[in-house]
């Protein structure tokens, strides 16, 4: 039980997917301009990564590994993720329009977000079982959401500040991310 909680905490805080592993940087820097969009994207990422890691884990354990097709995992995972996102989108559109409305536009965009493929591959590398994969996916996505919402809040504060001209735009956002990353390094000291 402790080890399962540890997987979530380590995914969300200690090995934060954006600030420590640099996956999903594009959307992290791009979407964090707006608070609302960041929160919606975070929700969609939690949804997709959790389901994708579950499916990838099942596929790997029952189809790829027994047949010695280990080397096919990159191709299989990326295609499965792309197809899965489409199915989830159609399913949500039919069954719960409310969720679809808030997450909808972000779902298809996540397909090529490297965090999704990254988590699936890391899970396999770490030799996690099904439950551990799902939890690690959930934890990682939670970490992504925490990071992007925090950065969006910081950016809403610095928007009104008088920033020196060369630092405007990407540099100040990257510096904010660097300071967040330093703060998150503190979690590495957590001992269990």
């Amino acid at each position: 039980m402790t080890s399962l909680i540890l997987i979530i905490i380590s995914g969300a805080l200690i090995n934060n997917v954006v600030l420590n592993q640099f996956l999903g940087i594009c959307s992290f820097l791009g979407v964090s301009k707006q608070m609302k969009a960041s929160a919606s994207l975070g929700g969609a990422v939690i949804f997709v990564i959790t389901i994708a890691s579950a499916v990838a884990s099942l596929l790997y354990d029952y189809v790829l590994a027994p047949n010695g097709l280990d080397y096919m995992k990159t191709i299989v995972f990326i295609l499965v993720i792309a197809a899965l996102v489409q199915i989830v989108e159609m399913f949500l559109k039919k069954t719960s329009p409310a969720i679809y409305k808030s997450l909808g536009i972000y779902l298809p965009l996540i397909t090529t977000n490297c965090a999704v493929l990254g988590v699936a591959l890391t899970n396999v590398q770490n030799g996690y079982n099904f439950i551990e994969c799902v939890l690690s996916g959930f934890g990682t996505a939670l970490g992504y959401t925490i990071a992007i919402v925090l950065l969006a809040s910081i950016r809403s504060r610095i928007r009104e500040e008088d920033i020196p001209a060369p630092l405007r735009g990407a540099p100040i956002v990257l510096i904010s991310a660097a300071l967040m990353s330093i703060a998150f390094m503190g979690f590495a000291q957590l001992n269990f």
Partner: protein
Amino acid sequence: MLKNKYLERIYNGIIKENPTLILMLGMCPALAVTTSAMNGIGMGLSTLVVLTFSNFVISLLRKLIPAEVRLPAYIVVVASLVTVTELLMEAYLPALYDELGIYIPLIVVNCIILGRAEAYASKNGPLLSIMDGIGMGVGFTCALGVAGILREFLGAGSFFGMRVLPESVDPIAIFVQPPGAFLVFAIIICVMNAIGIKTRQKELVESCDGCCANCAMKCENPGEVENK
């Protein structure tokens, strides 16, 4: 004239449209693996190989792939090439393979590759596409090399693994740790802003919609974005 057309692709990739420093594509690997000069260049070269071959294959297949399914088709081509590269590296460059780890399979979702496939290889002949791939790949390698050299020097006091700072000087270790990646790229873009080199950083921080491949395609059609 013919020769110039090919050389122009190389110049374009390295200087005029440097994928990382000017177009701001492929930031994930650029931030992640530049902990040392060697890693940065190793990552750049692996991407160069995949990019050149994927441009070549996609350019050959450009008339066969129906427009509706082109993205999945590109992804399959790129993923196969990445798998081949990954296996070759595991066999012949095990040290680099261990260092780069998860970031090798993640070349599949590198915006630069899908972006070039969509914007260039799907519209041009195989030879030109190869040159475009080489130019973009070398540009990416240079950018990663520069960032890697900077981070290694500041953070470990060494240059390609050789210690250059005297032992009495303590290097600033934070630069080889994750925050250093953000800081170094912030400084590089800031310097480029200050000396007036135009980058597409606005796309990076303001109009990206959360999807790497989409991002790449949008950046490739600057006119469209600006005319909105």
